């Protein structure tokens, strides 16, 4: 693994097993801030586990983390995880800082709805939207949250190729506006090639980095 300049998020000696199944054993990886890092690898190799460890959803068995302290995360899950009883606007407002006034929350949500090109759908419920539109709301929600790092777990899997391509182009455009650190997990090489400023390719568990930092 090549060590680049500006690497500020580092994990060293990561260990994680589920029973006898060793996922990470003394594993090192680092991420550059302000770029999209893609993690490419076969299904079930431990990519999601790494995201969950970084996001605090899964406890690691061991390892040191530097640069992650005090950081806030957003998570774009594989499935959109929208609240079905809330409208598009309501779903985005749900993660906004509760100290904002109702009008500030609405205007912030509406601005993001415009950014994800869902104008006119603010008052729609998730059941009235297509899968791709729901995932766009989920991405808008991730950008709405005042986070430092956005974790994305195969958010485009399950969508057809044309839609996937459109969403990727569109995602790069919104990302350009605030250039947050993004860790994007996928098993689709074309997604990694299109989106990633840098890419790590993972092996099967126990995970090794097969190749790293492909421009």
């Amino acid at each position: 693994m090549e060590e680049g300049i500006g690497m500020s998020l580092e994990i060293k000696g990561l260990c994680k097993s589920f029973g006898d199944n060793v996922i990470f054993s003394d594993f090192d990886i680092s991420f550059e801030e302000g770029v999209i890092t893609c993690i490419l690898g076969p299904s079930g190799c431990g990519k999601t586990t790494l995201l969950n460890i970084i996001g605090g959803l899964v406890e690691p068995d061991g390892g040191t983390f530097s640069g992650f302290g005090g950081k806030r995360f957003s998570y774009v899950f594989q499935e959109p995880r929208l609240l079905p009883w809330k409208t598009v606007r309501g779903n985005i407002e749900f993660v906004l800082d509760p100290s904002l006034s109702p009008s500030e929350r609405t205007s912030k949500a509406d601005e993001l709805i415009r950014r994800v090109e869902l104008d006119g759908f603010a008052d729609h419920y998730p059941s009235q939207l297509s899968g791709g539109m729901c995932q766009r709301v989920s991405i808008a929600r991730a950008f709405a949250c005042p986070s430092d790092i956005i974790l994305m777990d195969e958010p485009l899997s399950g969508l057809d190729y044309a839609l996937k391509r459109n969403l990727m182009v569109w995602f790069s455009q919104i990302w350009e506006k605030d250039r947050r650190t993004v860790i994007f997990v996928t098993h689709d090489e074309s997604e990694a090639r299109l989106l990633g400023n840098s890419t790590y390719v993972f092996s099967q568990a126990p995970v090794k980095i097969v190749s790293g930092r492909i421009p």
Partner: protein
Amino acid sequence: MRISITRNNRISIASVIVILVVWKLLALHFHSRFILPGPEDTFLALCKLVVDKGFLAVVGTTVLRGLIGFAIAGVLGIATGILAGLYSGFNAFINPILVIIRSVPVIAITLLALIWFDPDSVPVFIGMLTMFPIVCTNVVSGMKSVDPSLVQMAEFYRVGKARIIRELYIPAITPFIFSGISSALGIGWRAIIVGEVLSQPKYGIGTKMQAAQTFLNVDMLIAWTLVAVLLSYMFESIIRAVEHKTVKWRRV
């Protein structure tokens, strides 16, 4: 759709007609208004009872008792159910209590309540105690059905616990709350009227039923029963209407 509703309506009307015919035949068979008066006698008794100036006070008092018992049972049942859904320890604590409340015969509770409370409060207490476990059990099942991935999402985005309860759990369990309320009210009315029959408060449908039975006014007894049935049906319809308005996201 319209055709099937009309057809079903016709079947429902036919069912009511069958009941009336059977009732009339039985009345003719017994041939005594002290055993079973016919539907027309009962209808006359019902008209007499409705125009009586004390009618609203009697019905109003029973409704008020129902609403108080129901409000207490509803608030307690929903709060307890949510807590039991959130904390498995609390669930383990509350479960035996619910089982006991559910299995103790209503009459046993009524007899005890007659010793403990004044006649006006007995029906409220019995109604409350009958409705509480039904609401609570429904809310607990609702809590178990909440999608854990949504809760994980909310916790990940650091949404506060109070907002998670208010904006995630409560909307998710709303259909369960309504089904709990609906079954609780159905059983609750009956329990409240049993309570009134036994505790004999000044006003109450149960008090009137007991008086009618004492004087063998069977037509009045059945007329009051019809009033109780209509009240129960009315509240059931109100609950359905409120539910329809509340969970509009399910219909879009």
